[in-house]
């Protein structure tokens, strides 16, 4: 057990170091900060002086160690475009992205699971075929197109929902939330639906496949033979056993949601981290890119690690196999 946890931890640290290294290389080889700060006309002495002041003349490993040390404290320097501290920019934008991603995940679960159960139980019926086709379209439609279509229908034609920004937000300490105002909720509807469509289709298809698999097993037949009602068999026995993979996938997809929020945030001008990142890519704003990259990697690595450990805790077979393999 300990060895397993340790190995996973080491793997996570290696991934994080690799990402940090990529971010560091970005700083190292893209653009010259000395020229940026002093302009083209500075003398050689001025350049050398500044280079020494900034610690840019230190050997490579020392610079990298310094970079990692700063990154651990959330310090990535100033944004080249906005001239503000990157850490501050990220902290401001973080709540918007998290609220959007979590809302999308909730929608995907609340709609996806029931639809998956329905299409599995009523297999071959007209309704379930319609939903299966729709889910295929949902997987094929690019996220940004869904967003644009929703804007066209609900914001332009019917004029019932706003199409950009977060609306009124309330600050609670450093966290800003749009969930406490009606205006905030209205602004959240379209982006959250846009972001959830792909995950919704995925969860629905997953639940359907798992349900069909489980319904074929012996213990379901046995439950029926005992004379349990359909309801008890479907929801008490079948659905419960399909939920473990569903929860795993949803957990893993949470990271994907945060990443895909880049697209949704661009379509709806949602003031989150994704919008910040995409503007950074357009203007080659390295510090912001590097910080976003490290943060996203941290989120992904943490989620993957948590899921791995949960799996281990939930599934006793994994433990036994490992013990058996050790002997």
């Amino acid at each position, binding site marked *: 057990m300990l060895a397993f946890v340790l190995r996973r931890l080491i793997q996570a640290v290696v*991934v994080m170091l*690799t990402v940090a290294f*990529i971010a560091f290389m*970005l700083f190292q*080889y*893209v*653009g010259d900060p000395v020229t940026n700060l002093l302009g083209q006309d500075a003398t050689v002495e001025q350049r050398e002086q500044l280079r020494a002041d900034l610690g840019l003349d230190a050997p490579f490993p020392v610079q990298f160690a310094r970079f990692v040390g700063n990154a651990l404290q959330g310090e990535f320097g100033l944004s080249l475009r906005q001239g503000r501290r990157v850490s501050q920019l990220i902290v401001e934008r973080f709540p918007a992205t998290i609220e959007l991603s979590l809302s999308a995940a909730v929608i995907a679960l609340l709609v996806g699971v029931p639809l998956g159960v329905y299409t599995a139980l009523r297999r071959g019926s007209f309704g379930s075929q319609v939903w299966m086709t729709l889910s*295929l*379209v949902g997987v*094929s*439609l*690019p*996220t*940004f*197109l869904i967003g*644009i*279509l929703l*804007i*066209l229908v609900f*914001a*332009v034609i019917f004029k019932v929902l706003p199409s950009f920004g977060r609306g009124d937000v309330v600050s609670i300490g450093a966290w800003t939330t749009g969930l406490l105002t009606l205006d905030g909720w209205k602004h959240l509807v379209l982006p959250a639906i846009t972001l959830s469509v792909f995950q919704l289709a995925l969860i629905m298809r997953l639940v359907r496949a798992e349900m069909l698999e489980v319904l074929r097993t012996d213990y379901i037949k046995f439950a029926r033979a005992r004379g349990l009602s359909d309801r008890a068999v479907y929801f008490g026995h079948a659905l419960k056993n399909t939920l473990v993979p569903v929860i795993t996938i949803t957990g893993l997809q949470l*990271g*994907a949601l945060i*990443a*895909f929020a*880049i*697209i949704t945030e*661009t*379509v709806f001008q949602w003031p989150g981290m994704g919008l910040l*990142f*995409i503007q*950074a*890519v*357009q203007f*080659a704003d*390295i510090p912001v*890119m590097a910080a976003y*990259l490290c943060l*996203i*990697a941290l989120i*992904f*690595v943490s989620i*993957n690690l948590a899921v791995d450990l949960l799996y281990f805790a939930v599934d006793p077979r994994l433990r036994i196999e490992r013990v058996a393999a050790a002997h």
Partner: protein
Amino acid sequence: MSTVLAAPVKPSRWARFVDSDLWYSFRHSPTAMVASTIALLCLVCALFAQWIAPHNPFDLATLDLIDARLPPAWIEGGSTKYLLGTDDQGRDILSALMYGSRISLFVGLASVLLSVLIGVGLGLLAGFAGGAIDGFIMRVCDVMLSFPSILVALLIDGLGRALFPNAHESLAFSVLVFAIALTGWVQYARTVRGSTMVERNKEYVQAARVIGVAPLRVMFRHVLPNVLGPVLVLATIQIAGAIITEATLSFLGVGVPPTSPSLGTLIRIGQDFLFSGEWWITVFPGVMLVLIALSVNLLGDWLRDALNPRLR
């Protein structure tokens, strides 16, 4: 007297194709036929855009601002000269669609080709060499797979932009193709590695080794043809993915240069005019994109089932 036995006539390639299981399964799958018709139509429109398109959207001399923002022909105010209407600069949407899908298809196909090359090469190497090389390549795959492809593509694209700040347009294309290709190779590498490890221990490979065939030759001439089946299916499905990734990157403003707009760029341009009611500028490129992606996806699904012996 010895009579020369007539060698059995080898059927022509065409005859063998018509007689094959694949063709049979194709003729009995309406989905596959509809999907391939649509895909072919899109391909023809894209390939022959120069000759088919009613206007040349990039020829500034033919553009007239008086024709700007005309609705499609069947809506009042539209003219039959511009069947699907015009955009803000008076460019014909239909022609822009044809030229745009050419760029989308080109980037999609080129990046899939590149990622197949990288993925198959590394997969063969990993499966054949084993050991530390295998371990290293597979760890890289694990790391890449744990991040969504769009993020990796964005990162590589951003890197390319930062490295060549005043790049030429052709370079922008290469950066884009590279960015998409470098996110896609992982799946090929994993598939090929898996099948290579199975094939490696089969008798024909051992036989080839015993008679002294060089390892590289064994790798490419003997093992490679036997592991390509799944790659073909995967590549078909990935074309749709690559086209959508390209459209997404262009939509985000970090894809193809604006002077040669792909479908994603057209959608991006059109989004600004959504609120003034000119929906056609963005909706038609969107429909085209979905048509291409959906038909390629359906073809890929069919191909997977048709080539899977367990489903016969």
